[in-house]
């Protein structure tokens, strides 16, 4: 069972529908016990970095414990940004610190939010991006972006390069929305299911 962590940051139904479509059972839950029992965990989320305060406490402990047990974890959009040290969007808060660096705004030279289909530049060996062609189009919608780090396996260009996909061991993060990225996104979710 895949646990989709519900921390009241946006609409999670489309993530569940996409897993249903690729044939894997997923449940939306805010119960730390259910997260502890899950084979895989998905941390979705859209909106302000402050929304991650709802994860503090038992939910965060369940997620951190699962990472320690090498349970595959996929962060989507805000869920991925939470895996970094922090974000300028809510500088008083800390992220999980699984990846070094701070999320920041796009430069003023480009429109923000970054909304629409942009290309994914595969930048390293990745299990999550298995069978995804170079320069696949995926759907983004975000105002803050994560820096390119050692764990970056997919980059995107918009007012400079940023991390579109990070991967380290069993921890994965994507800035775009695989559940809204057509066949490329569904392939990525299938790859995650088959880990």
């Amino acid at each position, binding site marked *: 069972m895949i646990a989709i962590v519900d921390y009241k940051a946006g609409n999670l139904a489309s993530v569940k529908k996409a897993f249903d479509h690729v044939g894997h059972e997923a449940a939306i839950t805010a119960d730390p016990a259910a997260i502890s029992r899950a084979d895989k965990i998905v941390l979705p989320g859209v909106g302000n970095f402050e929304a991650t305060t709802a994860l503090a406490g038992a939910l965060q402990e369940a997620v951190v414990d699962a990472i320690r047990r090498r349970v595959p974890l996929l962060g989507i959009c805000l869920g991925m940004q939470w895996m970094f040290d922090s974000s300028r969007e809510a500088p008083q808060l800390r992220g999980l610190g699984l990846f070094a660096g701070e999320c920041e705004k796009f430069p003023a030279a480009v429109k*923000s939010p970054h909304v*629409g289909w942009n290309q994914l530049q595969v930048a390293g060996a990745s299990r999550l991006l298995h069978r995804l062609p170079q320069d696949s189009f995926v759907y983004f919608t975000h105002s803050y972006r994560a820096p390119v780090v050692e764990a970056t396996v997919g980059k995107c260009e918009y007012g400079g390069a940023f991390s579109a996909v990070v991967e380290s061991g069993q921890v994965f993060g994507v800035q775009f929305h695989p559940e809204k990225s057509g066949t490329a996104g569904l392939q990525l979710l299938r790859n995650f299911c088959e880990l």
Partner: protein
Amino acid sequence: MLTKRIIACLDVDAGRVVKGVQFSDLRDAGDPAELALTHGRAGADEVVLLDISATYQNRATLLDVVRRTARQLFIPFTVGGGIRSLDDAAAVFDAGADKVTVNSAALADPTLIGRIAHRYGSQAVIVAIDALRIGNGNGLHFGVKATGGRHATGRDAVRWASEAEQCGAGEILLTSIDRDGMRDGFDCELTRAVVNAVNIPVIASGGAGAAQHFIDVFRDGLADAALAASIFHLGITPIGELKEELQTAGIPMRWPC
């Protein structure tokens, strides 16, 4: 590179897709869920479902249509028409929409934009503006109409777009009432005026009839996305052919996809 988006719009009345000319004279064009999927497969970057009867007949948006559509569609899916409150928006999100458009209700109470954005994020709130040309030459400006283009509001479209952005809108869906259903080109002047006033994406709508119209609204109108209805479902312009032509003309497109 971030592409320009081609959005297929389904105007829905009583559970069927219809398309009118200048907001009236409706014709049946099929089942919304089926058409949405067809458009997605054909290369549409997004699908918008507008319940065009909802506002004036005070009907709830057709949630079962939204549910059926969302089940199979894995590209962004927007629903609008008759969303008057946070609860109306919540029902549409629960049924599977990724974004909602608000129009008349936001004109009556702009705080609705922020209330939906607070709960679902700005990216999920599109403010739809139905604009009409007033005057000409140096006196040209754009008025805003409410309730499906029937009532003048006294507002200026450019100023309203900017206010909507400040209230928390993530995108603007800008429809030219003058061009709607005419297939003689988008209103590039209107689109450019709004694009220059806001820093969020603007979707141009009303007037799509040929590939050149899209090229014009992306180049001269500076639109981020363009929406069309009848030319896609009546099969006048296959989306794939359109995208190929735009790409050849140098407009960045998600194609092939």
